[in-house]
């Protein structure tokens, strides 16, 4: 069983975000990056499926040079090899264009299963996996909390709203978007980190994949959300306790 996992590199959580001077994206000059959280879970699911069914896990990531750190981390955790689609200006590619890149890379591998995260922590369109499925002509399901494979068929548990779930069956190959929390994440071992250095990372360019992009929107600008609510900001614990006592009446 060959499993492809799409992983995106995003600014580290808790980064202090400010708009770039251009007003078109965030200021990236002092940022650190990490794997998109749901993608870490997608990778974990892929590794556990491989452990159960045998086969191979291939990580694919579209992004600039710095993305290679995230790719190495995936290899250190146990991915067998990786594809780095080298794109410097990935934020300027809309989801359709990004998914075209990923789909072209998937096609060269013909996997049995493609896993993505359910959405990215930065732009958060929440659709690259679904778009890829359509481009590849594969069935898909989203927000997945459990994956079972039996006799060439998939049976997955979809998360619905308000605590509801649903099992859905479909044939392989297929694309699934994985929800955070599906399994417990592993850490990379020292051995894994060592081994990662020797694993294959194939670099492909959009040109080599035959994909170009046409803008589907024009970015006016990014801003901090405006505050509309009159939040009373308190400075001290004493002040807060006074409010809880005299205004909220809970003490």
């Amino acid at each position: 069983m060959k499993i492809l996992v799409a992983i995106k590199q995003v600014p580290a959580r808790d980064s202090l975000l400010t708009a770039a001077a251009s007003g078109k994206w965030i200021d990236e000059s002092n940022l650190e990056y990490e794997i998109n959280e749901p993608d870490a879970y997608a990778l974990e699911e892929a590794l556990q499926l491989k452990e159960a069914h045998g086969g191979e896990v291939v990580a694919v990531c579209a992004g600039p040079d710095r993305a290679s750190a995230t790719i190495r981390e995936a290899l250190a955790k146990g991915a067998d090899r990786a594809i780095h689609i080298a794109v410097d200006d990935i934020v300027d590619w809309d989801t359709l264009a990004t998914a075209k890149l990923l789909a072209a890379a998937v096609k060269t591998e013909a996997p049995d299963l493609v896993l993505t995260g359910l959405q990215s922590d930065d732009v958060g369109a929440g659709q690259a996996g679904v778009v890829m499925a359509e481009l590849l002509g594969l069935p898909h399901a989203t927000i997945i909390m459990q994956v079972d494979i039996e006799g060439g068929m998939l049976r997955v548990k979809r998360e619905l709203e308000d605590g509801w779930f649903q099992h859905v069956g479909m044939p392989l190959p297929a694309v699934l978007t994985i929800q955070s929390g599906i399994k417990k994440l592993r850490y990379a071992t020292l051995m894994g980190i060592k081994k990662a250095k020797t694993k294959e990372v194939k670099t492909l360019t959009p040109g080599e994949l035959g994909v170009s992009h046409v803008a589907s929107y024009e970015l006016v600008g990014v801003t901090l959300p405006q505050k509309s609510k009159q939040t009373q900001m308190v400075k001290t614990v004493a002040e807060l306790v006074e409010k809880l006592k005299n205004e909220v009446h809970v003490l």
Partner: protein
Amino acid sequence: MSGILAVLEAGHKLSAETLAAAVDLGAKLGLSVHSVEPGGTYTADGFTDGLAELIRTKQFQVVLFPHTYQVRDFAPKLATRFDRSLISDVIRLRVDSGVLFVTRQLFQGKMNAEIKPLGEPVFLSLQAGAYRAGEAEGVVVEAMPAAGAAPRQKPEEKFREAARAVDLSAAPIIVSVGRGIKEKENLSLIEDLAGALGAEIAASRPICDNGWLPMERQVGSSGQTVAPKLYVAVGLSGAIQHLVGMKGAKTVVAINKDENAPIFEVADYGMCADLFEVLPALTAAIRAAKG
């Protein structure tokens, strides 16, 4: 013929808001407003085939969806059929000199981006709270064309996990903890505060994903919906999926070290501070105040 198509989800509270948005947009853009509510068993394949046929024959210029889990499952596929990108999670629509601009959130609500869609049809999904449900007069109701090929997905019955041992919906006071707590060991700070307040403990999703607290204490779109008298959010950013589960709280207190955290936008009282410094003092002061 062309116009705006609102694709509604039967029984979903966001459908009325989406229809209101379509009506408003129709008036501003001078387009007729149509709606469709696909029925029958949902599959991504079936809904995509049927709606693609409808959009193609009637040549809609704008297609609006509520940003529900079901829409997330098929709308990107549908947009792809038209070689278009869905603009998801939209919180504001603006028309300026006949041109449509949309605002969507980035970084789980920490930033906004305004974009001008290019080309047609424009596919948009609306986030909860973007529009108030209103009158929907003059909307042409469309029938969903029959699906084409048999869907590849085989959905089974929907179900809920076994009854929850904890029911947070009736709790008068809730202390809710987010990832700002850093380590499982630090949860004792939350337990102490909750103890002093006589509160139930709740959490954001990542805390439950990590197994630090049981899933049944999760508040949000995939957890419980609560409406306490007081909701104290500690080290929790206030992503929309969390907010939908607690916006019924009468009073919200937020403690967060990031002054731009979206949780402050829903808080009545905010304290921009390091929780590790504040919590011990707060717990002690509450105990003292209670005597």
